[in-house]
């Protein structure tokens, strides 16, 4: 019997702070054992449990794409004991990893469709994985138009800035980056995500929407998606809940009979509608 609670060892290859408030740090992990690497297959939207031995475990969405070989990337928001330790971890240090866990985004459903990606703040991590996956030469033809709306409170709080610049240059992705408050160097859009969505007004025809962000953003963006006639079945989101085991045993992350860790974290609004409002 394989032990699903026993982490594989990985090593911090690279780590850097992403944002001016220094609350978000990205760490890139490389596999220590070849067989672990061979066995690790994931889909964008899945997550891992990262262990800092002595501090504990916490769950993080995988920010890298399966198309980016031999390493995994996570962006960590400094909040509790484990995340603080991950903010202080040095390059070369070993970390325990369990995963991939959860269901991930329904990639096969998106094939042949337009994909609208809406992200807010630090929830952009697994969306980065999704976008990077589709922008890979092998996968780009799988979907039609890709539209990305990404918002942060301030320019300094945007994640993956270098990549955003690259994507902006590409013609096969429509990227709209917006901030709530600009600064003197900011030349891009200023405005809240729901309003920007209204402005961009992507067609819902033959389209799927994926939305991840703070609850308040989702609350106001969702009606705009409805107005654009996106049906509930074609709007997906990824939920966050307190988790421990990540495999549907320990309780606590359930919404009704489903476990966010095992049956999620990605759900369509049609699925969520059927569940109790317990999140």
């Amino acid at each position, binding site marked *: 019997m394989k032990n699903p609670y*026993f982490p594989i060892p990985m090593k911090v290859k690279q780590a850097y702070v992403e944002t001016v408030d220094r609350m978000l740090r990205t760490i890139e992990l490389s596999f220590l054992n070849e067989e672990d690497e061979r066995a690790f297959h994931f889909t964008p939207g899945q997550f891992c449990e990262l262990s800092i031995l002595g501090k504990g475990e916490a769950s993080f969405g995988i920010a890298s794409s399966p198309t980016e070989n031999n390493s995994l990337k996570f962006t960590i928001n400094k909040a509790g004991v484990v995340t603080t330790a991950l903010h202080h971890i040095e390059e070369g240090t070993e970390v325990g990893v369990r995963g991939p866990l959860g269901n991930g985004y329904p990639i096969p459903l998106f094939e042949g469709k337009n994909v609208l990606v809406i992200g807010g703040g630090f929830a952009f991590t697994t969306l980065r994985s999704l976008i990077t996956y589709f922008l890979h030469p092998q996968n780009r033809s799988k979907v039609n138009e890709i539209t990305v709306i990404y918002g942060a409170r301030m320019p300094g709080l945007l994640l993956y800035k270098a990549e955003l610049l690259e994507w902006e240059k590409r013609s096969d992705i429509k990227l709209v980056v917006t901030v709530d408050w600009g600064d003197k160097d900011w030349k891009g859009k200023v405005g809240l995500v729901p309003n920007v969505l209204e402005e961009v007004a992507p067609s819902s025809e033959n389209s799927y929407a994926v939305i991840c962000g703070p609850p308040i953003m989702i609350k106001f963006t969702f009606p705009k998606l409805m107005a654009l006639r996106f049906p509930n079945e074609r709007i997906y989101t990824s939920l966050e809940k307190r988790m421990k085991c990540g495999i549907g045993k*320990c309780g606590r992350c359930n919404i009704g009979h489903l476990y966010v860790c095992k049956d999620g974290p990605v759900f369509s609004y049609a699925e969520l509608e059927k569940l109790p409002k317990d999140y």
Partner: protein
Amino acid sequence: MTLKLDKKDLKAFLETLMDEYDLFAPVQLAEGVSIYKKIDRPDDVDLSTSNPQKPAKEVFFPQSETMFRYEKAGKQQQMTSTEGVEKKRVILGARPCDIQAVSILDDVFLGKEYKDVYYGNKRNGTTLIGLACNHPLSTCFCPSAGGGPFLRKGSDIFLIDLGETFIVELLTEKGMTFQKNKFFKEANTKEISLAQEIEEKASKKADASVPIEGIDRRSDLMMESPFWDRMHEKCIGCGVCTFLCPTCHCFDIVDEALTNKGQRVRNWDSCLFPLYSQETSGHNPRPTGRERTRQRLMHKFNYFPKNFGRVACVGCGRCILYCPVNFDIRQAINLTSAKGIRKVKDQVDLTRR
């Protein structure tokens, strides 16, 4: 052929068992307080007590259990799993309710998808020696939950206490391996008919009227019922009912650290504790007793049946007996049925204001 084991031989029988197995049985810790424990001396076994406070689930799913140990040196680290089990186990004296509960835990830990090795390694190869429940209490309702004081299902060997002797029934292949045990003798017809008499009497006594049948469907529309506004009021939010429940299985995983080494441990957790679902941000999806009590009951009677096809309650009555404020799960169950509501209307005030 029905066998028997004379009580005067019990000690010697247990000694032979302990040569081969790790034996777990009820042990009295203080007057009227007992738990299942690994037995070092056969004299510690106490089969005369009523159902122990802590259920037999602890043999496979200890309240606190090390998952692995680790050592750190600079940037390197070494982890060693503690999933292995030294010896096969025997549980002696578990009541049918606890044995039924083990099969529910099997669904959770050994069912489809991920298998829990810590539970599985202890569970596999374990011989369950059940003990018939001669005196169900008024708080017991096992027949309502699909069980019964003499339910043999799940036991490999089943004992019936006749006073000076136990009737021994070998029920499974694993049980049959004990057929040649020198302490098991043939029971006479008088003993067999006495056992039947006790069984009949006990089976009549246990409460079969708690309306569990169909509760999964009935509770489907209850998430926002005013029921929850009132039901939770007296609950003080301790973990008695969940910790003493033979089917509750939620746990927490924590690290216990010394400077450079330590261990990862899993401990029982309870959905009635506020911290159970509280997120690091401070947001708690189940902020009050209302949501937490609802989680406890809905998990047992709605979510669990959706996932595993049966309720996560065996009617052992521990949560009723030991609750510090007399929260009675039977009243909650009753309130889901039209007939039951009439029965408890007086006890639970559902006025909403």
